[in-house]
């Protein structure tokens, strides 16, 4: 049982253009870019089922986080499903799933991004009794992420 974080963004472009941007180097770099001097983004992508998209990003060479995404579903221009592993600064890993859905909406494209698999959210859902303060805090955080579509 998992919980999910969901985000939406209406983009003024066709689903094909949005999908293709997400799978080209410029779009992938934009996804991980930060307005911070010296910010590093290194991305390599093998766009095929089972192919791997690796990204290293961070404020310096000594502080790089690494994301390894494996393409599980590629359904141009409608959907992408990736299994993702985040390798953090201390070498620990967090496995999650990332889904993108691209839907035409009035000449624009609604992008829905769903992030699944936080172990603590799973704990919250399964074990509502006990640790009440922690679960209340988690509920606040997760519901904040679900409360509204973020549209342009």
């Amino acid at each position: 049982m998992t919980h999910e974080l969901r985000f939406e963004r209406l983009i003024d472009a066709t689903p094909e253009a949005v999908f293709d941007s997400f799978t080209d180097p410029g779009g992938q770099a934009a996804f991980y870019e930060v307005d911070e001097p010296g910010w590093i983004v290194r991305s390599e992508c093998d766009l095929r089922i089972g192919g791997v998209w690796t990204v290293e990003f961070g404020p310096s060479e000594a502080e790089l986080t690494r994301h390894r995404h494996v393409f599980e579903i590629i359904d141009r221009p409608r959907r992408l499903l990736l299994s993702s592993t985040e390798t953090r600064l201390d070498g620990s890993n967090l496995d999650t799933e990332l889904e993108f859905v691209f839907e035409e909406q009035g000449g624009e494209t609604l992008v829905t991004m769903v992030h699944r698999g936080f172990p603590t959210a799973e704990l919250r859902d399964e074990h509502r009794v006990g640790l009440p303060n922690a679960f209340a805090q988690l509920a606040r955080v997760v519901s904040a992420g679900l409360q509204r579509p973020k549209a342009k």
Partner: protein
Amino acid sequence: MQHHGATLDRTFFALSDPTRRSILERLAGGPATIGELAAPFGLTLNGVKKHVGILEEVDLVKTAKVGRSRECQLGPAELVDVARWIDSYRHALERRLERFGAYVEARTARDR
């Protein structure tokens, strides 16, 4: 993202195992001895001790000697740091989608 304290990482590790989550679920119903925890999971006493030890390291469980048994109960840890980490993660994802949208729109505007 700056959110990786050692305790937080250990807490994530502790919560990442389904048996340990089940142990927490069991303890949410009340204290239990190591033996009482072992039975429903089909684990050895040493196996349960190992899981309980990992949970105890991050204060999700506390144990005390009661007679000849070791009794376990939920510990004092609150998952506030974990919740903060998820919050920062959520903001980072939100920003990524926003930046990507701006990139596509700028590119589309150039091509029109």
